[in-house]
């Protein structure tokens, strides 16, 4: 979905928004968009590109997503989170394309009346996103090799353990 600059969906009752972005995530603007006078708590999670994975020096990451189903499945995840931990508003943005070390790959923000819902919903959303959304990550290593995470390099290993990381 590289080249797709922006894709999103909006649910009506509470604000639940999931997006795929090919450009850097403006976390400050996202946070401002969740400002709500009824909110007493706000929790955000950022997933960053790390320079190492399982002993391999990583130079950059490449994310690929199938945006139409990221939106559909992402909406379900946010709706499930809202049901379990009723919040006022939540948004999620996931990057696609080539990302450098330190860049924000995924951002989740939840505003709620009390802190407990914000913390729990934020955790639930990132955990479910990692398991369910059609998003893939290719690591580009310092030695010139590359590999899709959870695929080739898992051969002969417990893939379920790796997915649970």
């Amino acid at each position, binding site marked *: 979905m590289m080249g797709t600059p922006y894709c999103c969906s909006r649910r009506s009752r509470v604000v639940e928004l999931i997006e795929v972005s090919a450009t850097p995530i403006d976390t400050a603007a996202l946070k401002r968009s969740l400002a709500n006078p009824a909110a007493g708590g706000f929790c955000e999670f950022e997933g960053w590109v790390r320079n190492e994975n399982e002993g391999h020096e990583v130079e950059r990451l490449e*994310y*690929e997503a*199938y945006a139409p*189903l990221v939106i559909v499945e992402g909406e379900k995840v946010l709706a499930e989170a809202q049901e379990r931990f009723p919040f006022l508003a939540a948004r999620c943005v996931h990057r696609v394309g080539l990302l450098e070390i330190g860049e924000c790959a*995924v951002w989740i923000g939840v505003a709620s009346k009390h802190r407990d819902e914000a913390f729990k919903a934020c955790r639930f959303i990132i955990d479910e996103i*990692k398991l369910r*959304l059609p*998003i893939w990550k290719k690591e580009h290593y310092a030695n010139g090799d590359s590999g899709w995470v959870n695929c080739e390099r898992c051969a002969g290993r417990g*893939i379920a353990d790796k*997915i649970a990381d």
Partner: protein
Amino acid sequence: MKHITVRYFAVFREHAGTGEEALELEANTALDVFEATRSRHGSQEPNGHCKVAINDQMANWDSPVNDGDTVLLFPPVAGG
């Protein structure tokens, strides 16, 4: 024989050398399509941690496929 369009993503696209191909298959389920493409492209990935969609709707491995369907094969996901 059914005319099935198969779409590949990430490592599956690299194995197949294409993002999409039209196949004539004796396939009743999504799993049949997966197995057919696996042998066609020499992939070792078991279906257990992969996902499948049919005509842009998430499906199960035992979901039926019909003539003219588009089957999307998703390797193990790794968002976040």
